[in-house]
């Protein structure tokens, strides 16, 4: 199938700013779904609120554009009801980890089979460039005009700590890796997290003098390294990409089916 078979063409050109990394994630996600040969009727995409959340409207799946931060909670209800469906949950960094942080850690803890994609552009774009929990200490934002004194956290470390059974990171520069990791995440049975570093040239890039879209992507190339590489040992500031965790743990829906069996027997 061609890319056009997966999108709702009438809504294109899409609404994101020129050079926005979210479009690249959309592109890579379509490729991943295509290469996996998934049936569109078997895919439910649940998004929250923000620039990232608009991704669901462009895709010809069962799509739900929900509330800020709550996508994983809605998705949990869908997945529990229909475990055979592939549930994809793209979220922004503020969406997933500020307002939605609680749902993120608990969905991961349950190990419910779904794919969380954190489209991390380190800023609240839709509201005009305020700092997010992942903007980073010392960055600038429309609500951090002097400097940002908020410390960030590492999405990958967090996801690992709270029990996600597949955890990976890529960037919009590493498009082939991005696609490959989304494929692996969808295929993984359990809660998968893929953090994708994405560029916001309009707000984050401009405020922090990181240049235009491709200059920001060049920076991603320079500041990242494959997980476990020698380079990381030399330069601790490098951000690792690749697969961090891929483990088996009882999956929530499967476990609940056993509960039903037991309840019926005990009754």
């Amino acid at each position, binding site marked *: 199938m061609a890319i056009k078979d997966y999108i709702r063409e009438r*809504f294109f050109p899409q609404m994101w700013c020129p050079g926005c990394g979210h479009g690249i994630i959309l592109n890579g996600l379509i490729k991943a779904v295509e290469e996996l040969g998934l049936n*569109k*009727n*078997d895919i*439910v995409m*649940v998004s929250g609120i923000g620039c990232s959340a608009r991704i*669901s*409207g462009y895709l*010809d*799946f*069962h*799509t*739900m*554009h*929900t*509330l800020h931060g*709550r996508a994983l*909670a*809605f*998705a*949990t*209800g*869908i997945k*529990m*009801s*229909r475990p*055979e*469906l592939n549930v994809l949950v793209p979220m922004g960094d503020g969406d997933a980890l500020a307002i939605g942080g*609680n*749902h993120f850690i*608990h969905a991961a803890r349950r190990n419910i089979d779904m794919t969380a994609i954190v489209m991390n552009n380190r800023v609240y774009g839709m509201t005009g460039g305020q700092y997010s929990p992942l903007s980073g200490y010392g960055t600038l934002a429309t609500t951090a005009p002097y400097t940002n004194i908020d410390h960030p956290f590492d999405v990958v470390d967090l996801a690992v700590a709270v029990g996600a059974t597949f955890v990976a990171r890529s960037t919009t520069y590493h498009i082939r890796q991005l696609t490959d990791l989304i494929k692996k995440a969808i295929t993984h049975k359990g809660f998968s997290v893929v953090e994708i570093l994405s560029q916001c040239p309009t707000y984050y890039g401009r405020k922090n003098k990181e240049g235009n879209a491709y200059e920001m992507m060049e920076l991603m190339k320079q500041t990242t390294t494959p997980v476990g590489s020698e380079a990381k040992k030399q330069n601790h500031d490098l951000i690792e990409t690749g697969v961090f965790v891929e483990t088996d743990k009882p999956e929530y829906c499967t476990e*609940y089916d056993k*509960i*039903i069996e*037991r*309840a*019926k027997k*005990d*009754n």
Partner: protein
Amino acid sequence: MNEKIIKFVQGNEACVEAAIYAGLGFFAGYPITPSTEIAELLSVRLPQTGGKFLQMEDEIASICAIIGASLTGNKVMTATSGPGFSLMQEALGYAVMAEIPCVIVNVQRGGPSTGNPTHVSQGDINQARWGTHGDHSIIVLTASNHQDVFSITVDAFNMAEMYRTPVILLFDEVVAHLREGLTIPEKGALDIVDRLKTSVKRGVDFHPYLPREDGRLPMSDFGGIHRYNVTGLFHDMWGFPSSDPKVVHGLLRHLVDKIENNVYDISRYKEYFLEDARTIFVSYGSSARSALHVVKNRRARGERIGLLELQTLWPFPAGIVREKCSEAQCIIVVEMNMGQVLQQVKTAVDNPDKVFLANRIDGELITPTDIRNIMRLIQGRGV
């Protein structure tokens, strides 16, 4: 063989049994007094029927999960109390906007804030109506005894499906925790409204937000043959966002009209001795039990007194209240708040000056003695 099952239960259990009777397939909740028994009992009962019970990380997640589950074709419910109900308000608005059937139980306790968790109150009447932001209409039902809790819970599920809307069951701590007999009706004794599914064939354009001629909106399950969009934004008949003034106006009007135009079908109430009553109590929930007690005692002494017990609180059955109270010389609203239904009754009747409030707001059930004392004050006879 269908046999009548008689149980001695709490009101919360009556609600649980009714939900299962109505076809509940998915529940998500978070422990909170005084609604917790609903979650506990459903964690036992739901998997026995093949349904699913989920304890979420908070009340926000709980209501979001049931909305998601409803989209896949399940009948769904969550249960909470005061603070949890406050947390649910945003997602409640989402279910209103996206027209997703679901039932939300709020077992009222004393508020605001943490308030009086183990004590009774009826202070959430207006919150149930207006808690979520924006213009909308909503169905809110209540009951005063367990048999009625059962039937009104079934009604709640039916109305959620009929009008594609969230329905709030607004019980109170006394009804929820009181134990009394419950006869579970035989299968088929109460009507059950099932999800109206679209008959639109595969490959044919399906409009999830285009009402049929009778006003109902058939649905297609997520994961089924029709892929569409669901959003909390104003949206067109396909579910795609739109800020076209015509679309916005049309949708908002539809959301309000589909409920307000059916106020008589939605209205549930019970009347006791109203035919010749000159003094009428208007009450609901556990307060109505005390009011009924007073009515029966006074009737025995020949007093022309009656009770209009409301079971539908919203949309407010103003026409019914006006009609039933038209001959009354004195209308006393009995409730456990500062007069939330009182205001509605005053608006509904021809002469608001004859409407009085008999209330109690200290966390204790309003008793027949309380009501009698307040009546004496109203009549200028002192306590």
